[in-house]
C-alpha cells in the first residue's frame, strides 16, 4: 500500500491511498485503505495522516482520523502517530502497522508497532529543503 499526504504552500491538505490489499485474501475483502479515517484522513484545519499494515485490524481503530484529531488539539505529529499506534496496541499487541502524520505547518512524524521482522519503518518526504525525495525512518 501507498498512503500519501500532500500539504500545499497555503496549508491545504489532501491525502490518499492505493493498494492491492492482502495476499490470498477471501474474495470480496476490502481493507482499511479506502475507508476515510482508517487508511488516510485529511483536514486542512489540522493536517493529514495515513496508515499502513494489517488493514483488517487497523481499520477498527480509525488511526488516521485519531491522529488528525489529535493534531487539531495541538499535538505534534510524532506524538499523534504514536498515540494512534498505542491505541491499537492495547487490544492487538502483535499487530503489524505504521502511521505517518503531517500538520499544516509542515511538521511531520511517524510511528510503528515493533513486532518480529518489523523494527523500523521507512517513509519518504519531499519539501523545498530536501529538494529531492528523502528517505527517513523511525524505530518502532
Amino acid at each position, binding site marked *: 500500500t501507498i498512503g500519501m499526504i500532500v500539504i500545499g504552500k497555503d496549508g491545504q491538505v489532501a*491525502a490518499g491511498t492505493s493498494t492491492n490489499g492482502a495476499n490470498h485474501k*477471501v474474495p470480496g475483502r*476490502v481493507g482499511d*485503505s479506502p475507508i476515510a479515517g482508517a487508511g488516510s484522513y485529511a483536514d486542512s484545519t489540522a493536517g493529514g495522516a495515513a496508515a499502513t499494515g494489517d488493514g483488517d485490524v487497523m481499520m477498527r481503530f480509525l488511526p488516521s482520523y485519531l491522529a488528525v484529531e489529535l493534531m487539531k488539539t495541538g499535538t505534534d505529529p510524532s506524538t499523534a502517530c504514536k498515540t494512534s499506534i498505542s491505541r491499537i496496541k492495547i487490544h492487538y499487541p502483535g499487530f503489524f502497522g505504521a502511521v505517518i502524520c503531517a500538520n499544516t505547518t509542515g511538521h511531520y512524524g511517524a510511528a510503528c508497532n515493533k513486532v518480529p521482522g518489523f523494527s523500523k519503518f521507512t517513509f519518504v*518526504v*519531499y519539501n523545498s529543503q530536501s529538494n529531492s525525495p528523502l528517505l527517513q525512518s523511525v524505530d518502532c
Partner: protein
Amino acid sequence: QATLPLVINTWPFEHATAAAWSALQAGGSVLDAVEKGCARCEADQCDGSVGFGGSPDERGETTLDAMIMNGNTMEVGAVGDLRRIKNAIGVARAVMERTDHTLLVGESASVFAENMGFTAEDLTTNKSISIFTQWLKDNCQPNYRKNVSPDPSQYCGPYKPGATLRQRRKRQIDIHAHD
C-alpha cells in the same frame, strides 16, 4: 525546519513522492499531487503491494482499493474490491468528482469506471499467477479463514462453517504484505 509544500508517503516509494512533487511544481492542486503520486505507484507496482499483478486473492484475482480525500471540503472518493481497472486512485477521484457518493465497490465500481472512460484490462501477471500457484501448492497457506471445515490451516477449500468456534492462531508477519 518545517517548510511547505510537503509531500510525505508510507514506505520507500520515492518515484511516487517525486511524481506528486512534480505535479505540485507544475501548478497542480494537492489533490492532483496525491492522484499523480499514487498513480505512479500503481503503474510501478510498488513493492508488489500496489497496483496490478500483486496480492492475488483465493481465486488468483488481483483487486484494488483506493481513496482520495480533500481536506478543504472533506469530500472523499473511494473504491474497494475494484476489478479489471489499473488506475484505482483515478477511479476514486472520479467517484469524488462525478458522484455524490463516497465509496463504490466490486463489479459495480468497475462498471462505473468503464463508464467514466477507464480501460478495463486483466490485472493478472506472470508474477501473480506464480504467487497464486505456489499458494495452492502450499495447501493454501497462509489462510485468512477460521472456524470452517476443512481445517483452513491445513487444507484448501471450498469451506463450510465449522461446528465450533475456536481462538484464531497467531499469524506470521510478512512486511511486504500490507494494506
